[in-house]
């Protein structure tokens, strides 16, 4: 039976192909000149170059974090190319997009063109750090929503970018955030003005294409008073033998009564079954519930990357604000994940919910790490956390590291945890009812993840279900 489990979890990566598009790649290495080069290439204003240089100076003084429960060889930051862009072209419509690129997205199953229209999704496509096409922009503009690449936003809406950039994740926040602040090449920008409910889900697909090019995206989403938006991020990367670094920063800002829902399905290349290659995904994601009654909700399905180091967090500053974190993290083979969230309660009657589901298979290691901090000012704050781990086979590991700091007597914090295992007995029970191992595992995993999948928008939930199936199912022998 253990061989059945092994076959189940050995599924080749279906997205391992390289698109042949001419790239404009910066020489390897990181110094002030590299940063100036990026800034010049992107024709950036002086304040942004200054922001980058300041971050770089901070980064030089910092050290890589050692506390995550992951192991990897030291990263040579001088061996990475910090800028890679498809040769620039002016694009007026989708017809002008490189057909090779479109085929790539087709292979990835990205819903674009009519598919995007049918799904009601506006896709801001990021391809090796530069936005190539933005659909639906007009329609969104009619209600005053700005949805574009962050480079474009820097030029078209500099006052907004300058006002908010680095306010949630300060440029020296942590090692990788500082690195990102110094060298970020592109990303998404989204602004929902006062009182506007975004009429559709906004979606971005990221894809790392050039071998050994680091990808440093920067995402900034602002929801003004009473605004609401649901944002979807999907990631896929082709297969390379060397590890690639991905250090993104995402900042969300919700003003009074605003609502931001941020959903991710991450399927970066995880390395092969021997643990060779794969993405290092060191990401800083944080939302600030700045206004009263605001709400920020993170939902993530993490199935890829060789190493995941990621803690989508909420700072609950506004009174009565709400933070949510729903996560499924699946690791297989030699993947390592140290992921979780931080809920920082500052305002009165702030509430947070954490639901984390970790699935470990193969020889992988999966850790939940979470912080719930109730500040002295957060009277009446409440938190509920639930962390469940599931083991597939007997060579994998699962850990839970919950940190709870309560500095207000009136707060109420609950934490529940469980560990279960897909073992012989469960599969036998299904088999005895005529159900084969593949279907059984899929049903068990989907049942385990139900609380999280329910939070995903419909199309994403379907995709996530399929993805988990792909990662865990295979040739049952």
């Amino acid at each position, binding site marked *: 039976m253990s061989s059945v489990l092994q076959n189940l979890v050995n599924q080749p990566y279906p997205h391992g192909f390289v698109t042949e598009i001419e790239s404009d790649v910066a020489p390897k290495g990181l110094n002030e000149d590299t940063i100036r080069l990026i800034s010049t290439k992107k024709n950036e204003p002086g304040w942004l170059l200054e922001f980058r240089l300041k971050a770089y100076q901070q980064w030089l003084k910092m050290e890589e974090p050692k506390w995550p429960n992951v192991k990897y060889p030291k990263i040579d930051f001088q061996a990475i190319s910090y800028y890679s862009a498809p040769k620039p072209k002016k694009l007026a419509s989708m017809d002008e997009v490189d057909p090779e690129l479109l085929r790539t997205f087709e292979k990835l199953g990205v819903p674009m063109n009519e598919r995007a229209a049918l799904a009601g999704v506006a896709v801001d496509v990021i391809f090796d750090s530069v936005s190539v096409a933005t659909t639906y922009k007009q329609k969104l503009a009619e209600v005053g929503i700005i949805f574009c690449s962050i480079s474009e936003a820097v030029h078209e809406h500099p006052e907004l970018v300058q006002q908010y950039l680095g306010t949630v994740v300060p440029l020296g926040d942590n090692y990788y955030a500082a690195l990102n602040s110094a060298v970020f090449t592109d990303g998404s920008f989204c602004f929902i003005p006062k009182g506007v409910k975004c009429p559709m889900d906004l979606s971005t697909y990221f894809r790392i294409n050039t071998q050994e090019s680091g990808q440093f995206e920067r995402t900034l989403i602002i929801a003004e008073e009473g605004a609401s938006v649901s944002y979807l991020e999907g990631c896929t990367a082709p297969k390379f033998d060397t590890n690639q670094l991905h250090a993104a920063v995402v900042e969300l800002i919700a003003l009074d009564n605003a609502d931001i829902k941020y959903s991710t399905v991450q399927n970066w290349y995880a390395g092969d079954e021997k643990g060779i290659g794969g993405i290092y995904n060191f990401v800083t994601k944080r939302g600030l519930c700045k206004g009263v009654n605001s709400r920020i909700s993170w939902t993530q399905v993490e199935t890829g990357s060789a190493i995941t180091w990621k803690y989508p967090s909420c700072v609950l500053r506004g009174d009565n604000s709400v933070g949510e974190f729903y996560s499924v993290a699946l690791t297989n083979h030699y993947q390592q994940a140290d992921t979780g969230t931080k809920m920082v309660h500052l305002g009165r009657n702030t509430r947070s919910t954490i639901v984390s589901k970790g699935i470990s298979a193969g020889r992988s290691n999966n850790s939940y790490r979470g912080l719930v901090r109730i500040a002295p000012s957060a009277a009446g704050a409440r938190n509920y956390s639930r962390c469940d781990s599931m083991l597939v086979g007997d060579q994998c590991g699962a850990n839970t590291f919950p940190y709870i700091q309560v500095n207000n007597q009136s707060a109420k914090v609950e934490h529940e945890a469980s560990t279960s295992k897909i073992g*012989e007995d469960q599969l036998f029970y299904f*088999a*005895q*009812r005529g159900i084969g191992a593949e279907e059984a595992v899929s*049903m068990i995993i989907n*049942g*385990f*993840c139900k609380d999280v999948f329910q939070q995903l928008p419909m199309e994403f939930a379907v995709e996530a279900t399929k993805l988990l199936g792909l990662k865990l199912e295979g040739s049952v022998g």
Partner: protein
Amino acid sequence: MIYQDSKTLLAVRGLRVTVNDIEILKGIDLTVKSGEVHAIMGPNGSGKSTFAKALAGHPAYVVTGGEVMFEGKNLFELAPEARARAGVFLGFQYPIEIPGVANSQFLRLAYNTVQAQRGKDELDPLEFDDFVREKMKLLEMNPDFLDRSVNEGFSGGEKKRNEILQMALLEPKLAILDETDSGLDIDALRTVANGVNQLATCDNAIVLVTHYQRMLNYIVPDYVHVMEGGRIIKTGGKELAVELETRGYDWVGVEYKINARPAA
């Protein structure tokens, strides 16, 4: 019930089974014909549950000798799920909990899988809902069961009812019920036993694995087998169960040893 000219469903010859390299079954012989009800009794550790699980194909139970024919075919050539689809049903002593999976979803998948195997129509969720509710009446089950996660938070009695519900849905040719009576109070026992009796036909057979005689008051066996030390050491009619209830198991073993002693 014993019928004239009924077909042999199950023929077990010299079955030997090990678990973790320890031999538990040391040569079992048993023939079950359609329409019959067999009870396998015996003290703890005698190998009753091992026998049940080995027939169903649990991977931890390794067959080291003998053969088992089911409807004339070698049962051990079939994977566990294929045995189930062919009509071998095991009612679990400890049904497994599956958090997050709705009972209705699980039951429908099992039902449709077996239906497809038999070349019959599968049911969509609505059709299945009507169908399963009808079956649940047989076991006096609350429809709430359908929305709850499979066996999660079920009481012992609820779990056993759920097992028999699955038997009712899958309509097996051979139902092996492993300690279905354990953990049931008197009322539940009667309900479950009634359910089983209503499912018994001249075309299927039931093997009850049990410690106690009490369930046999409701489901009357045609044959009672006493298992000890991995062998069937005595076979009799329903009156044997009553005798065991009053006299215990020890005397059967003693009698077996005397009979087995080689002639001097």
